[in-house]
Structure formats: C-alpha cells, structure tokens
C-alpha cells in the first residue's frame, strides 16, 4: 500500500516534534498517508496518539514539517487546516451538545456554499447513519454515546474532507455499537475512498478497517507496516490484542 512517490502522498509528516509548553509528547515522527488510504494509529495511553492528530489539525504547536496535498500546514490555524480538507473528529466527540442534530450537520458544512451538494451529502449521512435522521430535531446532548459518535463523524464528513482524523471512535461504546460504527466506517472508506488516520484502543476493530498501521510508544513511532503485519507483530499482540 505504501506508495512512495512524494506527489502521491496526501499527508506527509516529517520529523515532527510536538507537545504542550515545556513537555514534549511526540519526537521525530515521520509518517505519510496516500489518498484513500486508512492508517490505524496504535499505542498505549499517553503514547502521543491524540497529540499527533492535534498537531495535524493545528490544535497544538509543532516543529518539523506537515504537508497536506503538497502544501505545508505548519503554522496554520485549525480553521484554515479544515478549509484545506482535513476533518478532525476529536476525542470525546466534540459535538455541540446544545444544538440540534440538524444544526450540528449544518455546521459541518460551514465551509461550503453549494446548497444542492450539502443537501445530497446530508442524505448520504442518513444512509450511513439512519439513526441521525430519526433524531434530527433533538439536541445532540440527548443522544446516546454511539449516536453522538455517529453525529461527530457525519459532521466531519459534511465538509467533504480529503482526510478524516478519528480519535477513539469506539470510546465508551457497547461492543454491538462498536461493530456497527466500524461497519459504517468501512462503507465510507469503500464508497468515498476517504483517507483516514484512526486512533484506537480497540486494535482489533482498527486493524480490520485499516490498510496499514503504526505503533507509537512514548512519543516515538516504533513500527509501521500493513495492517496484517501489525496484527501479527508480537508487540501489538502483547499490548492490545490480549494474548
């Protein structure tokens, strides 16, 4: 899967270092994602997975180079990075809990002006996540955790991104909902050739969705390979797959 011609890379991260104030969380990360490729980002709590997503979307300052579709992202504010085509579904979902489901979806399309396209995409979201249609006029805060996660993903997709950053989509969800959610993500991957960078504690589900995966340990990228190779990697098996 790893096409190495630079122009074929959608996201190219080189020697990235990032953190909060004096605390460095990520060191010397180099990672690339091709268009349409799904990469799972595995690692223990505190390994720096969330920080890596936040660095890409501009929520934390970083040193090193991040290029998206050939143009540098470094130094841009999050709203400009969103405009370039990166949608970040943050940890804890980040839904607007006092706004309705419909308003959350409208906000997802904030950067767009094509009314017809937005309406069509909204319908597409209802195909991926039929529950959202039933709950359209409800305040997002009254949805279940799983429904809020679906809403957060749908909101991210409403911007027609080229790269979707997902931070722990399975967090706090019942197993049945997790499989439902990952089935929807697989459909989105196949139908829309959507590139994704997925942070997950549920390595099993993430590796089934992903083409390739990488493992972070205390802020460093220790291995990268195909999803299959990582599934067989003893370090991953030991830490995440429970045997």
């Amino acid at each position, binding site marked *: 899967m790893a096409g190495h011609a630079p122009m074929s890379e959608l996201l190219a991260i080189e020697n990235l270092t990032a953190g909060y104030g004096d605390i460095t969380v990520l060191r010397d990360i180099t990672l690339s994602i091709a268009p349409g490729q799904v990469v799972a980002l595995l690692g223990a709590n505190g390994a720096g997975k969330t920080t890596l997503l936040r660095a890409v979307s501009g929520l934390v300052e970083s040193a090193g180079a991040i290029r998206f579709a050939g143009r540098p992202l470094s130094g841009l504010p*999050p*709203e400009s990075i*969103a*405009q370039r085509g990166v949608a970040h579904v943050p940890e804890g979902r*980040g839904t*607007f809990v*006092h*706004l309705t489901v419909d308003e959350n979806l409208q906000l997802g399309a904030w950067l767009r002006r094509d009314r017809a396209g937005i309406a069509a995409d909204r319908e597409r979201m209802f195909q991926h996540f039929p529950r959202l249609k039933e709950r359209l006029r409800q305040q997002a805060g*009254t949805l279940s955790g799983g429904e809020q996660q679906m809403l957060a993903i749908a909101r991210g997709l409403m*911007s027609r991104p080229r790269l979707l950053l997902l931070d722990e989509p399975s967090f706090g969800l019942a197993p049945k909902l997790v499989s439902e959610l990952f089935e929807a993500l697989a459909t989105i991957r196949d139908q829309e050739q959507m590139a994704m960078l997925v942070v997950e504690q549920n390595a099993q589900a993430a590796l089934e969705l992903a083409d390739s995966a990488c493992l972070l340990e205390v802020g460093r990228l220790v291995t990268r390979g195909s999803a299959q190779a990582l599934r067989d990697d003893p370090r991953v098996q030991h830490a995440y797959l429970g045997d």
Partner: protein
Amino acid sequence: MTPEVFLHQLFAGLTAGAIYASLAVALVMVWRSTHHLNFAQGEMAMFSTYVALALIEAGLGYWTAFAATLVVSFIASAAIERLIVAPVARSQPLATVIVFVALLAIFHSLASWLFTPVLREFPSPFPAGTLPGFPYLSGHAAGVVALALIELAAVWLFFRFTRLGLAMRAVAQNPVSSRLVGISAGRMLALGWGLAGVLGACAGMMIAPIVYLDPNMMAGVLLYGFAATLLGGIDNPWGAAAGGLIVGLLDALVGAWLIGPELKLSFALALIVAVLLVRPAGLFARTQVSRV
C-alpha cells in the same frame, strides 16, 4: 397605593426594564465570548450616546444619527475586542478584567474631555406627552419598550435563523469544535462584541432623554444591568432580557409601594442576592443536558 400611582410606576418600571434588558443582553454577548462581565459596557454605551448627540448637533436627523451611531458602536466594539481584549486574553486570561476596568476609565475620561461634562438634554424620537387613552404612559416610554422588543426580536431571529447566528452559538458552546469545522472563532467573538456595542448604544440613547446625558449617566444603569444578567442567567440572552424586565418592575413597584425611593436600589439588589442563593445559575439558566 392608588391605581394612578400603580400605573405610573408600572409603566416607569417597564421602561427602565426594557433598557436594562438591552444592556443585560449586551453583557451576555460579551460574557459568551470572554467569560467576564464587561464593566465598561455602560461607559461604552454612554460614549455612543455622546457620539449620537454630536451627530444630531452636526445637523443629522434623529434616525440617521441613531443608525450612524449603531454602525460606529459596532465597529468600535468589534475593534476593541480584536485589538485589545483578544490579545490580552491570549497571553493572560485574568488580565481581561483589568482591561475592562481600564476601558471604563478611558471612556469615562474621554467623554469628559471631548464633550462638556455637564448634564445635557438628549432628544427623544417619540411623541412628547402621554399617549391618548393612556394617561400614565408617555410617548417616550411606549417607544422605548417597542424599540427594545424590536431589538430582542432581531437578535433572536439572527441567532435562530442565520448561518452566522448558528456559528456564533457554536463558538459560544465549543470553540475548539467550531474551529475544527472551519469557523474563525476570532471573527465570531468580534461580531459578538459588535452586537453588544449596538445593544448598549440603544440602551444609552433610550435612557438619556429620561436621566439626561452626562459621563456618569450609566453608572447606576449598569448595576441594574448586572443584576438583570445574573438574575436571568448569564449564559442565556432571553433569561437576561426577562431579568431586565423583572428588575425594572420590582425596582419601580417596590420603591413606590413598600419602602420609598431611598432604599429601592438596595432592596432590588438584596432580592437578587436572595434569588442567586437559591438558584446560583440564575432563574432561567439552561439545564445542562448531556450524556456520555
């Protein structure tokens, strides 16, 4: 209390309440963007009223001067947020309070320096005298209440039915998610300040014909505005507007009826403290609904 006195006080209370409501909604707008009460809101409104008077004296018609004052107030407030408040808040959040106190002092002395600091008459655009059929309701009082209702309706329609209004609500709730969907949070904060400046200017221009214009005009009014905001719920513009009406009515009726004018400010504020002890988030605070 005779019915005449009651009606007189009722209408006076409604008029004051309408003005407090405008100011309270202005305070909520700033609160939503900065999470501080803007101590300078009253002085900014007073300064806007002086601008209006200067424009009227320069020969503009009342409503032209009124509209021009709203535009100036919008731009000046938004610029204050962008150029002073936002940079300070980024580097040191608590310093925002100091900025507000400084703005209060600056607008106060600027007004005294630029305009003669004596009581000035300020015109009302509404008919003089009482309304036919309502012997206790003056034309100005009716106009003030009508204007306040129009303002609040406009604000409601803006927040409820426009893209920008939706984006502003989103930023007030969750600035990080707002930026992730591509909303420039900074611009929305400046817009909120601009709207607050407009509402404050309306309040100033409406109260000036009643209390006369001078640099201290808004000191007491702002206190009632704070009370209205806290009473209604600081995060909720409609609660704050209702709080304004309640404070205006209570102040007028209790002052006339029970305790006389000397103690009425203290009584109104004591009552508000009592309410806040029971409902700290205000009478109309939004109940937090969320599941995890």
